[in-house]
């Protein structure tokens, strides 16, 4: 194998596929990045739970493949001057890396035995703009569960039906549901590990370039122009999330998203995750008072709202409200409270593109 590739292109590729490489493995080949020169240069990182293949333009002088330790390879390329890099496999999988005046020879591993990514069987697939998928993930990923004992909750549900794609995450205290319209009329349902979703989120850009999602066997792939991401899926049935959404609401308010977020952020200044304190929301006609009492001090703010229900006092972990509000770009949101101890939901004023359900903290002064 012998190729010449621009340093920046190579580094971008390494940075992306590296996310799928196991940092530590008993099999050295799995700590490596697979490189294959054919029509162009293909790099692969694969940890079985997640696999990423990335293609870069390169001048191919001789085809072939090799595996290089991801960490060392990455460190070397990062420090090379901005110029074309030549990579050549000489005898015994020894790899020669040259760039202007720099010269390296490092030991690689035969590419023959590298586990390549499974091929798609283009059965179930849909296509949507990268930006749309990126938004879907961004707006839901924060409420994915982290409890390994409840594996299903550590995944995000991705469901396609009726020309609509939905992402759902929940962690036991809250839930996020977002949807987007698609052109394809397919029906599928997968649970993708939240960890992998985060990596995919990072790789996606905000363009309208298409991303193709296809389901095959135990894996789901996301195919971009020069990148293919293959994730495993979680076995099992996702929670019947719709059943958590209350149908009756005591209090429904409309509030400026940004003002509310900032108020909550100020109220949390005197609290911390280690020493948590809830905020107390008091809805009285057209005002909302945000009140927080912690070991550090007290804070209080009042906001104008539009109230279409009865008055209410309710407590929340402010972080959960903030997480949800921050992922919303609408100027105004609707918040519906079922009761002072039941769930509340945050939705758009006039559509159903997103729904955040948050469970309150009961403020029992039991004395």
């Amino acid at each position: 194998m012998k190729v010449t590739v621009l340093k920046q292109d190579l580094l971008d590729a390494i940075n992306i596929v590296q996310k799928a490489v196991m940092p530590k493995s008993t099999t050295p080949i799995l700590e490596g990045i697979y490189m294959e020169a054919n029509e162009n240069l293909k790099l692969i990182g694969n940890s079985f739970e997640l696999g990423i293949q990335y293609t870069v333009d390169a001048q191919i002088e001789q085809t072939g493949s090799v595996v290089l330790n991801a960490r060392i390879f990455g460190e070397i390329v990062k420090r090379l001057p901005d110029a074309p890099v030549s990579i050549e496999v000489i005898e015994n999988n020894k790899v020669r890396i040259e760039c202007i005046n720099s010269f390296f020879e490092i030991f690689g591993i035969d590419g023959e035995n590298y586990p390549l990514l499974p091929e798609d069987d283009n059965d179930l697939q849909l296509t949507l703009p990268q930006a749309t998928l990126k938004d879907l993930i961004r707006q839901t990923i924060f409420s994915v569960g982290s409890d390994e004992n409840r594996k299903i909750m550590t995944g995000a549900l991705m469901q396609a039906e009726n020309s609509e794609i939905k992402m759902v995450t929940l962690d036991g205290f809250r839930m996020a549901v977002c949807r987007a319209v698609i052109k394809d009329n397919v029906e599928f349902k997968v649970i993708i590990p939240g960890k992998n979703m985060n990596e995919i989120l990072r790789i996606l850009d905000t363009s309208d370039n298409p991303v193709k999602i296809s389901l095959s066997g135990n894996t789901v792939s996301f195919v971009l122009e020069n990148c293919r991401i293959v994730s495993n899926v979680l076995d099992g049935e996702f929670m019947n999330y719709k059943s958590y959404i209350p149908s009756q609401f005591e209090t429904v308010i409309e509030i400026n998203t940004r003002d509310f977020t900032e108020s909550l952020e100020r109220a949390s200044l005197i609290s911390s995750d280690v020493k948590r304190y809830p905020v107390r929301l008091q809805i009285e006609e057209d005002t909302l008072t945000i009140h927080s009492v912690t070991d550090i001090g007290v804070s209080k703010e009042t906001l104008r709202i539009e109230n279409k229900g009865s008055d209410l006092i309710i407590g929340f972990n402010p972080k959960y409200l903030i997480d949800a509000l921050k992922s919303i770009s609408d100027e105004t949101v609707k918040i519906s409270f079922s009761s002072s101890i039941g769930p509340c939901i945050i939705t758009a004023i006039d559509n159903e593109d997103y729904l955040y359900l948050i469970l309150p903290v009961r403020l029992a002064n039991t004395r």
Partner: protein
Amino acid sequence: MNKIVILDEKTANQIAAGEVIERPASVVKEMVENSIDAGADQITVEIKNGGISYIRITDNGSGMEADDAELAFERHATSKIRKIEDLDQIATMGFRGEALASVAAVSHLELITRTENSEMGISLVLEGGRVLSSNQVGCPKGTTFIVKNLFYNTPARYKFLKKDSTEAGYVSDIIERLALAHPDISFKFIQNGQVRLHTPGNNDLLSVIYSIYGKEVASKVLPVKYQSGGFTLTGFAGRPEISRGNRSRQSVFLNGRYIKSQVVSLAAEEAYKTMIMQKKFPFYVLLLCAPPGSFDVNVHPQKLEVRFSDENIVYSVVYHGVKNALLSASLIRQYDSSGQMDDKKTQKTGNVRLNHPQSSGVQDTAHKDAGNEYKDKVLSVYNNILNPLAVDSQEKNISESGIRDVRHEDKSIADRDFNGNKTGKEGKVFSRDIDQKDAVSEKENLSRMNTVELASVSSSEQSDTTREISLDFYYSEKVSRDDSLSHLKEAQIVGQVFDTYILLQNGSTLYIIDQHAAHERIRFEILKERLAKSQSYSQSILEPVIVNLSSTEFDFVMEKQEIFQKFGFDLEAFGSSTVIVRSIPDIYDTSFSVSDFEEILDRWMKTHSQGSIISNEVIYTMSCKGALKANQSLSNEEIKELVKSLCSMENPWTCLHGRPVIIKIDKKDFEKKFKRIV
């Protein structure tokens, strides 16, 4: 001193007889108490063969007139009480008037004594209680008793004596207690020609502690000062790391008298709860001053067990006194450059020090044997004082708000005390390290001496070469709690190692924090505080936790439903064996599960049967669930939060099981390790 008279029959019988001379230690105790009664401020005890063949007690007290000296050996001869009414107001140590008679009856005894006003002293030689000779002699003021061949005429009692070294240990224990009770008296203890203990008699208890236990211990004790309800508690409480596997380093004195008291030891150990590890017992020397009439000392013939008329007050004074001492100091443990944490080291030096028997022998066993029944009873009584959930809300205040409030007040007392000590005594004590030369000269002196000369020992031996050692170490390590915490709070994060320990640096100090222990401690105190304030925050959960229970468990949960609620558990019965948990304390995250609930319930039911309403153990279990674990990597933000919260804790020093949360290593220790300095 009063003239000696023989007590009338009635008074003599009223006194619980039974003070028998069992072993050399009993002789020493009686004799030294007599010396103390005689106003001595220098007392020397010398023994050979564990005191079986030879005991000498020399004091510089009042001495006796010639005629009194003989009378003193009569049974019920005493100069201290006249009639039964006096028994209620006993100020002196001994009062039975039979010790000398009992000792004399079973030994070869010599007495040399002279009062201030007599020109000549008297020397008596007795055998089995009979006076063999009586001569005028020249001798210094004071008294010397020499008791030889104890039990020579009572083989039955002789048989019960233990090995010499064991008997010597008992004697040593007695002297240590007496020395602790009387810092104003200089005690010297010589065993087989070697000086084993020499206290300076400078009226500084810390110096006595230094003399007995060494520098390591003396540098790790905290002053106690507390007053309430007519009771005053002073003394020293050891830092948690000098705790040991038995109670041999716990001494309690009631109005100057060594006592054993369940109430006191329960209260003191409760104050250490969550600071020391299981099966470890704290070090303390506590001096309790109680108003007359508030206790009865004559319960036990050994005069050790005491009955208090109001145990609650005693418990509360001891608990708060010790707790305040612990709370007002910085308890960060120092990593020692010898490579050991300090607890280990003190133990080691402790072991080589004296070939002591394991603990204080006879009395100690009695103490242990007093049994759990009593302990349970007492525990249930005090539970009310300490338990924030106790029904009586007045008592609740003592336990929670009381602790914090008094802390500051108490700190200032402590500070004042330090300065007083420091200037008053120039920070010096006598050394306990007696060098070989000293011991040898002592021996030579003694062998050259005849009976008459011997009486002068007391004055000559005081001038021997006691080196003075600076107590600076003590004051330099006394960093206040607040200073220490603000130093820690301002420390820079170095990072995290093994995803388990947090490293921080400030100046030349490296702090190491165990993240799990720290988080557990924080959660524990949050729960405690919320409980005390009856303020619970309860996070509702999406999927209720459904717990299936046995009928006993179910009944227990239902009975305690209200308390569960105070913690933030919202429970609902479903049928007769299932409980639905709809919301959980908000310190938990989403990983809270059925098994967590079951574990809490288990612990609760176990500790409940022992009489407490809700024990700390249950709250520990609750705090442990969901706390940060080892092998969990933290961001700098998270570390900052954790350290900040930790610094606001009442006890940031130890985890709930007494393991350290924070340790520190000085740059100096690194330099020692790398042999840059020695």
